């Protein structure tokens, strides 16, 4: 039966190589699969030791995929407006819209992703893997780290409970103090025309972030779009660059 499927036209149209049993077919298994061909065909033996890589980069990517899958499913049940947001989350929590553990997995995977990306950076640092020729890719990784934390930060507001609102209030209050661009920041007072300030509570960096002077309905919508569309798209593109550069820079690092 299995052989009958494997010899049929359908199977052979999908997998153009035989069972990966020898070197040639194993190489083909990687090369002819769009997802697996992120990998090279062969890697240095020390590079795949678990004690060397800790698997943290891969786990970060996997957690990102978990976030996308659970996040898209959550979007079916969530409306980013003040009147509904909290009660939509409460409905998920009480199992009225029975998505079970979806929200739990989404939230804990987000926290786990922050930890795993920090540990990935620690590993890359302590093995000196940012050194030439990987300087640029380290920089891409730093941007991805920042974006991961911003993803988590923007998502933190969406439940629209006290925890969310005040955490974002504390966080976004920092933007008020941006030098030149925040109305309480140093230098902002100099940006004035005929004594009329250009940077005030209704025009500064914090206002642009929240679309308002406090964490209100506009901020909720803005964080929702940032969280669900804008940052994930940028992260996806940068992950592509990051992975591509790993290959171009010689794969998992090892002694030169």
């Amino acid at each position, binding site marked *: 039966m299995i052989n009958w499927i494997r010899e049929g036209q359908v199977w052979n149209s999908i997998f153009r190589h035989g069972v990966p049993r020898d070197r040639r077919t194993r190489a083909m298994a990687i090369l002819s699969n769009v997802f697996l061909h992120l990998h090279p065909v062969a890697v240095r033996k020390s590079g795949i030791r678990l004690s060397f890589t800790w698997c943290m980069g891969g786990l970060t990517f996997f957690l990102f995929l978990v976030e996308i899958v659970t996040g898209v499913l959550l979007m079916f049940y969530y409306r980013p407006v003040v009147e509904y947001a909290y009660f939509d989350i409460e409905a998920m929590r009480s199992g009225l819209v029975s998505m079970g553990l979806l929200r739990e997995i989404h939230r804990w995977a987000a926290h786990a992703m922050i930890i795993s990306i920090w540990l990935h950076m620690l590993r890359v640092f302590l093995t000196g893997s940012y050194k030439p020729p990987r300087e640029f890719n380290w920089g891409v990784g730093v941007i991805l780290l920042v974006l991961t934390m911003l993803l988590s930060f923007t998502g933190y507001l969406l439940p629209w409970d006290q925890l969310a609102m005040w955490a974002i209030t504390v966080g976004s209050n920092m933007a008020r103090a941006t030098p030149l661009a925040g109305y309480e920041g140093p230098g902002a007072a100099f940006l004035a025309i005929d004594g009329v300030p250009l940077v005030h509570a209704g025009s500064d960096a914090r206002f642009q972030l929240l679309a308002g002077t406090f964490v209100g309905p506009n901020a909720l919508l803005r964080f929702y779009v940032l969280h669900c569309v804008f940052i994930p798209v940028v992260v996806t593109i940068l992950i592509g660059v990051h992975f591509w550069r790993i290959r171009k820079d010689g794969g998992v690092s*090892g*002694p030169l």
Partner: protein
Amino acid sequence: MHYLLAAGGIERVKHAINTICEPAPFFILSCAALAVFLIGYRFWTRPAVAALLGLSAVLYYAISGLDENFFSIISKPDNVPISIMMGTVAFCTWLAFRQAAINDARVERGEPLLEAGADDKVLVWPDLVYIEFIALILCTAGLIAWAILLRAPLEQPADPSVAPNPAKAPWYFLGLQELLVYFDPWIAGVLLPGLIILGLIALPYLDKNPRGNGYYTFKERPLVITMYMLGWVVLWVVLIVFGTFLRGPNWIFFGPYEYWDAHKLAALLNIDFRDLFWIKALHQGLPSHWLVREAPGLIFIGFWFTGVPILMAWTCFRKTYRQIGFIRYAVMSQLLMWMFLVPLKMALRWTINLHYFIAIPELPFNV
């Protein structure tokens, strides 16, 4: 009777731990622990020693969990990731330095590195693909278990008129929020995070040491690793733990076994650098123009960011300066001086209650 004595003993231990968890001892002990670990990394990373340390930490955590105040902090749903972070950071640090110790000993004996054998290649299918597959399944299982055991938090609906006390940012930013104790928001919340990002991106272009590329080592790059561990483990992770676990209402310090009493007072009378100079030292009033008034602080901060790097280029960083050149040294020293301004200001706050080096509310510009 014995029971009462024992209970009194436990209370005394709790009280002692509460005391050493105050900001100054907590931070200084963290730095000291890092120094002791790095100096004796070959000893501390031996499996038996590390296992003993890990086990005692777990035991301490478990026993402390019996205390209701301790338990109420660590069992907040959003604080659980912090405990996980502490455990994984400790484990991964051990794993890395264990391999560094082995590699450094091997190099001394003239033996090949753990990672040696560049031509020794294996096929990705099956060797790597299967590792990834197993890691992915374990990760999924772990996530599902975590999700079943712990519900995601949901508090009361958002209400702009009822501010919780304390109001805290998400835990991964809490190190920065803790820095608000010592710096104004434009430094703690904008400048320092920006410099951290810039500094991390600049790191590969500043560190011109060609050794230690692609393998664990400490001996071949001690300075860079020490700076990174100080910056990341102490100034980031330790401050996060401090900000989440030990800061209660009104951002006042509370020991791990202390009840978060919103009426606790902290007597603090902070004074500015200018007051120390003009009033305390020279016994005269403050000059009226801010430029004169703040001159001592401006000169000190100016010296910190220009004089100290120049002095270091002459003395302890002589070799580094020759190796990396003027521009790289200038960038590196500015980043380092900003990083070390943090512990400097902390130390001055704890010793002489320093508020600001420079306080110019006219601009406003406070450092």
